[in-house]
């Protein structure tokens, strides 16, 4: 494309502050002369002048294309990297979260174990096995050496047992068998055997035996 530019140019005629041309006329010139001079000045002012040609405008295009490409490629690569980084971080976060959860669990387990060791029952059992006893009465020593109170030596009797009481033994360990005399059935027929009313006889005997043992 050829760039043709033109511009209007005004003769450098003197003008008034409001833009009207100043026409210098000899003294004594008539109104006609004045009008004519003004017309000439107006024509001079309106004449178009060709702007001198300065050769084709050849701004280098490569840097611009390069810049746009670099921005584009850089943006895309950056976005890719950013995305990849986010994904990596996500995986890292997931791994770390899992680790944190497992460490929390570990900490809780250890706290639990510690609590189990600090449990007064556990300590009392250990102390009892080591033969330790707790005092009933202790003395108070004041700063200066004076003691007050009555101290008595600690004994087993003053120590509460940490162990569950043993279940009470039955009074008779080998109870005598309870013999129940049962009249032998006279004649057993098939009908009798099938009669459900008579069959639980064995069960009744067993019940009676149990009741007897309970009383003994």
């Amino acid at each position, binding site marked *: 494309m050829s760039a043709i530019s033109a511009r209007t140019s005004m003769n450098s005629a003197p003008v008034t502050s409001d833009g009207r041309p100043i026409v210098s006329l000899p003294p004594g010139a008539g109104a006609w002369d004045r009008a004519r001079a003004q017309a000439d000045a107006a024509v001079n002012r309106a004449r178009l002048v060709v702007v001198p040609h300065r050769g084709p405008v050849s701004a280098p295009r490569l840097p611009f294309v390069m810049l746009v490409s670099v921005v584009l490629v850089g943006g895309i690569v950056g976005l890719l990297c950013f995305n990849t980084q986010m994904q990596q971080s996500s995986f890292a976060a997931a791994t770390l979260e899992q680790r944190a959860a497992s460490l929390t669990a570990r900490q809780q387990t250890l706290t639990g174990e510690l609590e189990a060791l600090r449990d007064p029952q556990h300590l009392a059992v250990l102390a009892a096995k080591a033969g330790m006893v707790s005092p009933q009465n202790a003395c108070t020593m004041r700063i200066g050496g004076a003691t*007050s109170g009555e101290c008595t030596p600690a004994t087993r009797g003053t120590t509460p047992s940490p162990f569950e009481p043993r279940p009470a033994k039955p009074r008779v360990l080998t109870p005598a068998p309870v013999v129940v005399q049962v009249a032998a059935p006279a004649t057993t027929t098939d009908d009798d055997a099938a009669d459900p009313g008579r069959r639980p006889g064995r069960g009744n005997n067993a019940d009676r035996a149990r009741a007897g043992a309970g009383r003994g």
Partner: protein
Amino acid sequence: VPAPSLRRRGDGLRGSSQFRLRAGLVIIAMVLSVFGARLVQLQAVDPGAYAALAAAEGTVEVVLPAERGDILDRNGAPLASSVDGLMIVADPSQTEEAAAETAAFLAERLDVDYIETLARLRVRGSQFQYIARRVPSTLANDVLDEAAVLGIEGLSTRRDPLRTYPGRDIAANMVGFVGTDEAFGGLEQVFDDHLSGTDGAARYQVGGGARIPLGTNEVTPAIDGADLQTTIDRDLQWYTQRVLRSAVGAARADSGIAVIMDSRTGEVLANADYPTFDASDPADYPTEDRGARSINLAYEPGSVGKVLTLAALIDLGRISARTRFVVPGSLARQDRVIKDYFPHGNLRMTTAGIMAKSSNIGTVLAADRFRRGEMREYLAAFGLGSRTDLGLDGESAGILPAPELWTSQTEDRIAFGQSVSVTAIQMAAAVNTIANGGVRVSPSIVKGRAVSDQGITSGTDTVVPRRVVSANTARQTTLMMERVVDPEDGVAPGARVAGYRVAGKTGTAQRVGPECGCYDGTFSVSFGGFAPADDPRFTIYVVVHNPRNGGGGGSVAGPVFSQLMAHTLQRYAVPPTGREPTVLPTTW
């Protein structure tokens, strides 16, 4: 002229707009065909598989369980705590083949039953079977890792928060326990909302097991439950429970209760019940042992009630500790003859003597000086007949007969602690009123304050002290109670604590049997008192129900009181005051 250059640039096929349009159309058609083919593949060929994949890989919604708050003792030691637990579940469709090996492995590592596990691993048509619930997560993860190494398939874990009671039976009667889904009894139930917090939720997209960073991600964080600190001293609670267990066992009794209170603040330091239960294994214990008898079992207190009667009379100015009474061997009243536990003729006793010897007749004679309604007012002021609201559920108010049922015969019996029902915690608070210089402080087991599910606020911050009797009355009553443990004049020398001044009162009450609703010949024996008598720090109340060794309050409950008091004074480093007890005359 620019025209030639324009033409030169537009030369060739590429410049033709028609060609470009056609080429574009072809490319668009190709791309759309690919889309169409993919659409057909997705929707027509195997939609099920892709839907399943999408579900697995898509948006995940998880509940973020709020951690339940701990229940702590007064020093911060946990009585109940929450642990991150897991449940191990099996998919029988995968475990069926190697069920025997898997079951053997699980039985060895997880303490589960082999036969039952084997059956669960072989359930047909199921893809979800519980193997073990509430396994500590470290153990569960270890087991799954080992299973993976051994090539065992079909096991997985789910979140399953775990409530642990490190002390097992320590304070179980007050703490209660949490079942699979809800809290049962004790503080766990009363303060369930306070402890449980609010579950949160997370909704996010996952891919390859990890959260997609730019995908949907909405998180409502869980609000963890608040801790609940109690006034209980765990070690003292343990000691109290063990001493009480020995005592109940030795007396071959039905049950026993021991309450230890800080005299000045009303804080319950220990509140033992026997028999009790193991909070980590509650199913093994009968239901009646899983509560707190100290607050839900009402019984007749017997002679410990004389403390309240005589203190009220002194406060009214009707008697003093030295008032003289002639106590006959028996006292015929309207409907029955009142007797003392020991036979005697006419005795010349002071009020202090009546207290020291626990004379029913003397107390009834003194109580004759009440005007109508006064005694009931005093007992109500001591806290009888109304709940202490210390923060436990199922509390009994006891029975203080209504004014219209309050006859002179009733008054006679109530004077020495029969025909009136109390709970152990009520009675401890009533005796503590004397220890605290006549000011009753309501007992509390919650440190600070906490609001129950029913909206009742309780705790040490809410305690309102209320004067019941004058300081002088409390002092005189204390001096009389000191005579009870006197080896010569008193009935409970076994309750003494060497080196300390101790004030207390025995009680041996006829017991109302649960079957007949009448006195069934069994007894409740008790001892309530405090030390040091001249500067009270701790109030201890012990009651043993139905001892079968023929013992009374002085011989069964007294030594328990003594042992607990000695231990508590040592534990809190309370030195003896070093003053000798003043000797009030018991006879004249």
